[in-house]
């Protein structure tokens, strides 16, 4: 279940953003992606998730091992919390949602329509989705946005439990999650350089 990235080059809108991305994410390990806004963290995660093709390099991961959580939670307002989770569980071929509800303290809200939840509660629901998928490698984009201190601690605990079970996580975040064991990867130095402006052919892309 190791995610291995070799010499990856990624692009946003046809323009290279990051080059020479190298890292290995072993089972039980977490890697925190750091870098200023617009440095390409989201693009990197989307590329790893298979949503966009890389410009070059290799991504090696066992099939059906990754799960991606982006800025938007994919929550349907008119469905209840339990229905939202059950849907995603079934998409990933699973049934049980109780553990996920418990991990993010959503059980009391299970029958509320997701549209009536607060932003932080919605975020918790979005994160609970990760648990019901049963996938080992989590790709998380700013998971703690709009979470309060308590919910952030819940999230850190969930990540820790996930790592203890042999899972792994790649997390783009600006705040300190208190995951002492996590390594960090700063993407700022990997920024792709623009070719010389008089490069007539190269500019065409």
């Amino acid at each position, binding site marked *: 279940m190791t995610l291995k990235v070799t010499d990856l080059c990624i692009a946003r*809108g*046809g*323009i290279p953003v990051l080059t020479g991305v190298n890292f290995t994410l072993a089972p039980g390990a977490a890697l925190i992606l750091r870098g200023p806004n617009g440095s390409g963290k989201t693009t990197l995660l989307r590329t790893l998730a298979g949503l966009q*093709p*890389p*410009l*070059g390099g290799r991504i090696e991961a066992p099939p059906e091992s990754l799960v991606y959580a982006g800025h938007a939670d994919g929550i349907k307002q008119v469905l209840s919390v339990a229905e939202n989770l059950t849907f995603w569980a079934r998409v990933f071929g699973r049934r049980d949602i109780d553990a996920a509800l418990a991990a993010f303290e959503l059980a009391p809200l299970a029958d509320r329509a997701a549209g009536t939840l607060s932003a932080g509660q919605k975020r918790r629901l979005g994160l609970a989705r990760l648990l019901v998928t049963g996938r080992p490698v989590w790709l998380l984009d700013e998971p703690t946005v709009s979470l309060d201190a308590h919910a952030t601690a819940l999230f850190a605990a969930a990540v820790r439990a996930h790592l203890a079970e042999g899972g792994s996580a790649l997390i783009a975040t600006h705040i300190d999650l208190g995951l002492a064991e996590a390594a960090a990867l700063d993407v700022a130095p990997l920024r792709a350089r*623009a*070719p010389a*402006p008089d490069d*007539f*052919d*190269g*500019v*065409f*892309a």
Partner: protein
Amino acid sequence: MRSLWEYANPARFIRLSDRVLPWITALALAALVIGLVWGLWFTPDERRQGATVKIMFLHVPSALMAINAWLMMLVASLIWLIRRHHVSALAARAAAPVGAVMTLIALATGAIWGQPTWGTWWVWDPRLTSFLILFLFYLGYIALWAAIEDDDTAADLTSVLCLVGSVFAVLSRYAVLFWNQGLHQGASLSMDAEENVDNVFYIPLLFCIAGFVLLFIALVLLRTQTEIRARRMRALLARERMG
């Protein structure tokens, strides 16, 4: 992922097309002048339709090119989808408005021809209807190109639209034939000599067709150059933002 095609060709295309463009333009003009002057002034009036029939020197070539332009876009789209050849996608983009104008010319000259001949500007004849539908396909294709900002995304989406559209255009053609039998005469040109128009008209018509084909090629080359340069400019601007 990246191949020689992607880098080398836009520049080579511009160099090559710069060299041939004056010749093709000159040939197109020559063929059109010869064909139209010959056709309009030096052919006899037709037995039944009189001088009206001479509008075919515009109508037939434009109708031919209206369909051929779409076929060219289809081929270019396939090349883009398979080879990821940027010039190909931009050539398809460049050909669309030209094809749309050809369709419009064919429709307009058809209406002008139809008025004295059939006594009406427009009938829901299969051929006329098919061309109207073809025109709508052109409009949709052009609008989709215009609506999407990212060039590669637009190229991908319009290529798939062109493919699907082609299938539906053919389906529409047969549906329309089924739906209404028409007034329009059969094909004016075919391999079967019996059905051809008179030789008097035939040779100037061939000149006109050659002129339209060359004109189409010249326009598409020119517009493709423009598209390539516009695209390069957008890429440069994006790079500048990137720093």
